[in-house]
C-alpha cells in the first residue's frame, strides 16, 4: 500500500464540511442571491408595466398639477427607471418598503402585523405534516408492493392533483357545517387557550398539510426505495433480515439526505397553499394581504410580499440543495 492512494475510511478525513463541500454550498448561496436579484428586477418591471401615472392615481383626478409634480418628485417618478430600481432595491435592503398606494401606511408596518400570523400557520403545518409524511413514506417503503402501499399511492396521487380549495371546502363542509366541531372561519381572537388554538387552526392546518404530506410521503418513499435497490441491501436480504429491519436499520440512514431534500422541497408547496388557505378561512396572514393588494393593484405592497415569498421559497430550495450536498458521501473524501 504505497502512500499516495487514499482509502475512504482509512484516510480519516471524513469531514462533512470540507473545503469542497463548503465551496459547493457557497456557490449555491451565491446562485440563490443572484436569483433573488433577478426576481427583484422582474418584480420591479411589473410596476413599470402599470399603465397610468402612479402619482395621479394616488392623489385622484382632482389634484392640482403642482401637487402631482411634487409627489412625482417625492416618489422619484421623474427619474429614469434604472435609477428608481436601485433606489427601490436600496430601500428594500434597509427595510424601507415604501408606502401603500391605497391608504398610505408604511408597507413594512403592514407586513410586520401579518407576518407572525403566517409564520405561525407555517410552523404548525410543518409540525403536523413532517411526522405524518415520514410515517406514511417509511411504512409504504417497508410494505412496498402490498395493498397498503397501493392505497397510500392512490390517495397521495389524488391529494397532490386536486386544488387546495377543494380540500378546504370539503373540510369546512364536513367539520364545520355537518359536524359543527369547528368554526368555518379563523378568528385569531379565540386562540388564547389551547383548545381555542386547536379550534382556530385545525381546518387551515389540515388543509395545508394535506397536499404537503402527500408530496413529502411520496418523495420519502422514492428515496427509500432507491436505497433499497443497492447491493448492500440485497446482501441484507440474502442474510435473512426482515422487511422492517432492512428499511429501518439498513436503508433509512443512507436515505436521510434525499429525505431531508424531500422535506425542504415539499415545504416550498406551503407558499402556494397558504395563498388559497388564508383566503378560504379569511386568515389574517401575509398571503391574504398580498391577494388584497393584487386586487387593488397596490404595487409597493405586492412587490414587498412577492419579494418575501420568493426569498422564503429560495431559502427552502437552498436548504434542500444543502441537504443533498451534505449527504453525498463521495464529497467527504476530497
Amino acid at each position, binding site marked *: 500500500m504505497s502512500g499516495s492512494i487514499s482509502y475512504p475510511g482509512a484516510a480519516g478525513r471524513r469531514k462533512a464540511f470540507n473545503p469542497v463541500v463548503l465551496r459547493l454550498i457557497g456557490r449555491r448561496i451565491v446562485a440563490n442571491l443572484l436569483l433573488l436579484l433577478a*426576481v427583484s428586477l422582474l418584480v420591479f418591471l411589473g410596476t413599470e408595466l402599470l399603465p397610468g401615472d402612479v402619482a395621479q392615481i394616488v392623489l385622484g383626478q382632482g389634484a392640482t398639477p403642482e401637487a402631482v409634480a411634487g409627489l412625482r418628485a417625492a416618489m422619484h417618478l421623474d427619474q429614469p427607471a434604472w435609477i428608481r430600481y436601485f433606489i427601490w432595491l436600496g430601500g428594500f435592503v434597509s427595510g424601507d418598503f415604501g408606502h401603500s398606494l391605497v391608504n398610505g401606511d408604511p408597507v413594512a408596518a403592514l407586513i410586520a402585523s401579518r407576518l407572525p400570523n403566517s409564520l405561525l400557520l407555517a410552523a404548525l403545518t410543518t409540525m403536523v405534516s413532517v411526522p405524518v409524511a415520514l410515517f406514511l413514506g417509511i411504512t409504504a417503503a417497508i410494505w412496498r408492493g402490498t395493498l397498503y402501499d397501493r392505497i397510500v399511492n392512490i390517495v397521495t396521487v389524488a391529494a397532490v*392533483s*386536486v386544488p387546495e380549495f377543494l380540500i378546504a371546502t370539503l373540510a369546512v363542509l364536513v367539520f364545520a357545517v355537518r359536524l359543527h366541531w369547528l368554526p368555518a372561519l379563523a378568528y385569531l381572537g379565540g386562540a388564547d387557550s389551547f383548545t381555542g388554538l386547536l379550534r382556530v387552526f385545525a381546518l387551515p392546518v389540515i388543509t395545508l398539510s394535506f397536499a404537503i404530506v402527500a*408530496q413529502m410521503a411520496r418523495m420519502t418513499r422514492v428515496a427509500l426505495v432507491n436505497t433499497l435497490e443497492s447491493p448492500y441491501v440485497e446482501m441484507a436480504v440474502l442474510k435473512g433480515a426482515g422487511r422492517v429491519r432492512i428499511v429501518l436499520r439498513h436503508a433509512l440512514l443512507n436515505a436521510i439526505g434525499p429525505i431531508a431534500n424531500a422535506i425542504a422541497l415539499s415545504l416550498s408547496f406551503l*407558499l402556494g397553499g397558504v*395563498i388559497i388557505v388564508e383566503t378560504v378561512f379569511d386568515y389574517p396572514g401575509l398571503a391574504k394581504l398580498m*391577494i388584497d393588494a393584487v386586487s387593488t*393593484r397596490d404595487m409597493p405592497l405586492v412587490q414587498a410580499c412577492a419579494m418575501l415569498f420568493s426569498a422564503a421559497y429560495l431559502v427552502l430550495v437552498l436548504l434542500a440543495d444543502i441537504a443533498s450536498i451534505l449527504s453525498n458521501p463521495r464529497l467527504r473524501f476530497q
Partner: protein
Amino acid sequence: MRRSASAIVGGGIVAAWAVVAIFAPLLAPHGEGQIVSTTVFAPISGRFPLGTDYLGRDMLSLILFGARDTMGLALAATALASFIGVTLGTCAAVSGGMLDAGISRVMDAMISLPGLMFALVVVAAVGSSIFVLIVTAAVIYTPGAFRIARALATDINVMDFVLAARARGEKTPAIMFEEIMPNMILPVLTDFGLRFVFIVLLLSSLSFLGLGIQPPAADWGSLVRQNIEGLGYGAPAVIMPAIAIGTLTVSINLMIDGFEVRRRLGFADVR
C-alpha cells in the same frame, strides 16, 4: 394489471370531459347564464341535479359550460409551453456549447420562481385577460417542458442513426425535427398531460382568488368563488365545481400512471 385498469377508467373520464367541453350547448339542460329558479343555493333535486347557484342558475349547466373555459385555456397554455419547451430543449441538446448553457441558465432561473407568486405579480401589473392568463401559465410551465425535452434529446442525439444523419450531411433543423423529435413523442405526451394538470390547477386557483378569467365567463374555479357564501348552508354549488376539477386532474394522473414512461423518466411530481 390493476395499473392499466385505473388507466382505462382515468382515460374514460378525461374523454368524457372533453366531449362535454365540445358539446356543452347541446348537453346542458339550460342556457348559459340563464336564471331558472327563485331558490338560490338549492340542494340536489330531480329538476336541478347539482342544485342552483347564488343567482338561482342551474349548477349542472354552469359546470358543463365551465368545462370549456377550464379545459380550453389550460389546453392552449399547455400547448404553448410544451411547444416552446420542446423546441428549445431539442435545440439546446443538439447545438450544445454556449447556446445550450445560455438557455439552460435562463430556464434554471425561471424554474426557481414560485409559479402562483409570479402569476399574481403579472396580474397585479397588467390585469387579467384570457391572453395574459394563457401566456403567463405557459411561461411558468415552459422550463419544466424544456428540462425534460433536453434530457431526452441529449440521450437520442448520441445514437447511431443521428450520427448517420449527420454523416449524410443533414442540417441541424432536419436532425432536430426528423431524427430526434419523432423518437421522443411518448414521453413528451406524458409530460404534456402532467403539465396540463398543473396549469388547470394554477388557472383555477387564480380564478378562485378572483384574479383569473373575468365574468361573465366562468371556469370551475370562478364557480367555486362565486358560490363560496353557500358553504355555510352546505350548498352543492360550492363543492360541485371543485369536485369537477378534481375528477379531471386525478383522472389524467391515473391515465399517466398507466404508462411506464413516467417511472422510467423518474418524473418528480414537482414542476
